[in-house]
């Protein structure tokens, strides 16, 4: 939302992470292939935030170039640095491009700027954002003979200090609209204006973040703690410091998600936590591939333990196992997506007995229709069956010779006998619908062994629908 407005494309899935990094003011490491605009990301954001920003090519720079010339003043123990336009002293945002290619002599200065906001013990008071980039480790040349001779992995201790470690999107990550929009705007065409919305958003969240750091939500803390344990058990090393960093990241991401404009763009808690977890792990800076399925499995396990969250795939399973009246409750659950309900209904329709299917359809079609619960495909299926039940015109075939010629079809006779026992007689609604249901089943070659059991189940379904309808009416009135 914000990034697109300032002309940055392709970073949509990571936008919340970037906003969280802006809120926390902690350093982030962007890994990416050449030409992904990773080094310019902070430059564009700084323009939108009205901050002075400098991009430093870590591979080419020297220590003096970063700090400016040191001068010892007369009769003073202090060193001052000659201010030059290229020096970093007064900048509010700094990007160190190609950090992994930096000369060892510069690395101490860069790391003290990145993680301590100081040079040689002198604080950089105006500095807020310190980001760094490195090339994708897939490009590293293991035998060191090709053109990327200086490509070496960053030290683990250094990477541990970055809050987020994200990967810059490549062409495949861009949506079709973004690709088209990119060509129209020339891809590197940021809006060089202040973005007041972004400024307001970040400045609103900063104090809240500081506040929440003191008392993080217990569930976020539990998630960070348990995920660390499980990852370590699964062979993925996560340090204590990294675990605490994960918690800080989750707090920031949770805040960003909470204050995100537009309900439809708000991720569920689970998605936010997974986003935080995947972009906090340091392994991607060392070409160590953690299998996605391991992270997903650990994440799902945690979500079910901590939030009692049922995954969508389980919903269909639960729906299939539920009784008919429970199924109705589930269909009228407003928190479940319409397409998921429809998928579950179609699955049920195709994998249930004719009796079960017909009971649900006969009793619930009118309210499912009225409250627009299912999508078109499922509703057509439902209505086709409903019409067949409402207008029965068929043959009851004699299934076997019973020896009792007087009674004709024994099964149908049993049904008729049971129908006469129903309260209210032949004029009651219950009698009429049971009669209709029996003749539907009979004409579809369904043997009704126990008419009482079938009729009572059908009546339960109708009573459930009555309750739902009454409840909905009351809800509407109130």
């Amino acid at each position: 939302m914000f990034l697109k407005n300032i002309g940055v494309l392709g970073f949509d899935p990571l936008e919340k992470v970037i906003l969280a990094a802006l809120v926390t003011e902690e350093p982030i490491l962007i890994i990416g292939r050449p030409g992904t605009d990773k080094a310019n990301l902070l430059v564009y954001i700084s323009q939108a935030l009205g901050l002075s920003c400098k991009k430093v090519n870590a591979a080419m720079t020297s220590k003096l170039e970063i700090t400016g010339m040191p001068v010892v003043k007369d009769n003073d123990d202090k060193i001052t640095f000659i201010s030059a336009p290229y020096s970093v002293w007064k900048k509010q945002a700094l990007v160190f491009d190609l950090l992994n290619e930096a000369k060892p002599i510069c690395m101490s200065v860069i790391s003290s700027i990145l993680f301590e906001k100081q040079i040689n013990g002198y604080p950089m008071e105006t500095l807020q954002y310190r980001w760094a980039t490195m090339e994708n480790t897939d490009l590293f040349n293991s035998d060191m003979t090709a053109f990327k001779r200086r490509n070496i992995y960053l030290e683990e201790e250094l990477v541990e200090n970055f809050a987020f470690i994200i990967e810059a999107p490549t062409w495949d990550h861009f949506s079709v609209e973004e690709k088209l929009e990119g060509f129209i705007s020339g891809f590197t065409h940021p809006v060089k204006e202040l973005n007041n919305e972004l400024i307001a958003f970040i400045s609103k969240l900063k104090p809240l973040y500081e506040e929440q750091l003191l008392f993080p939500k217990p569930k976020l803390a539990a998630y960070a703690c348990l995920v660390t344990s499980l990852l370590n058990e699964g062979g993925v090393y996560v340090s204590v410091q990294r675990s605490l960093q994960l918690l800080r990241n989750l707090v920031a991401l949770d805040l960003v998600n909470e204050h995100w404009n537009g309900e439809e763009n708000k991720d569920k808690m689970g998605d936010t936590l997974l986003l935080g977890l995947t972009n906090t792990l340091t392994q991607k800076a060392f070409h160590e591939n953690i299998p996605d399925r391991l992270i997903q499995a650990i994440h799902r396990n945690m979500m079910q333990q901590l939030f009692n969250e049922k995954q969508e795939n389980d919903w269909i399973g639960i729906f299939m196992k539920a009784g008919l009246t429970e199924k109705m409750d589930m269909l009228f659950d407003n928190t479940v997506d319409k397409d998921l309900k429809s998928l579950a209904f179609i699955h049920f329709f195709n994998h249930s007995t004719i009796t079960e299917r017909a009971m649900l359809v006969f009793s619930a079609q009118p309210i499912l229709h009225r409250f627009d619960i299912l999508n078109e495909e499922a509703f057509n299926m439902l209505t086709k069956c409903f019409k067949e039940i409402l207008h029965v015109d068929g043959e009851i075939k004699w299934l076997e010779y019973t020896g009792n010629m007087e009674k004709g079809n024994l099964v149908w006779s049993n049904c008729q006998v049971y129908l006469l026992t129903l309260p209210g007689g032949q004029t009651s609604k219950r009698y009429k619908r049971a009669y209709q249901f029996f003749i539907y089943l009979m004409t579809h070659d369904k043997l009704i062994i126990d008419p009482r059991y079938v009729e009572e189940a059908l009546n339960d379904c109708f009573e459930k629908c009555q309750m739902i309808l009454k409840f909905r009416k009351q809800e509407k009135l109130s």
Partner: protein
Amino acid sequence: MTNSYYRDRQYKSVNGFPKSLHLSNVYFPNEVPLPSRVKYYFKSSEPFSSYEEYLFSLIVKQGWHSLEEAKSMVDLPTQSHIVVDCKEKVGFVFSGINEKLVIRNMLVLAGSGENIYHPEQPLIFSDKRMNRQIELKRIELNEFYDLD
């Protein structure tokens, strides 16, 4: 006399009871009276090349300027209904008698799928849709669920 009917008669004469029993019942409680009880069908005595062209010629004859105007003038059902095939077919040709009625029936037939009529559904002028005789039914909830 069909062969199956003959076989059934023979079965009854040998075994003393019929082989099968025909059952028929319609359970449409308290349908919404009008226009859902109206049978929608279309048959024209005049030759025409396509349904759309014929419909537009009728619309122009009425002095209307668009399909939307026609829709608003002919009292189309405003809510979604269940589409049911008429069991008793109407045999006569009625175009030319009441062109407004012809327009309405054409619009309803084109807007009715196999099972559902919805006023906002796109109109499809296919032979399959237009050569049906249908009724639109709408279930009255209180009546169906026996509520006050």
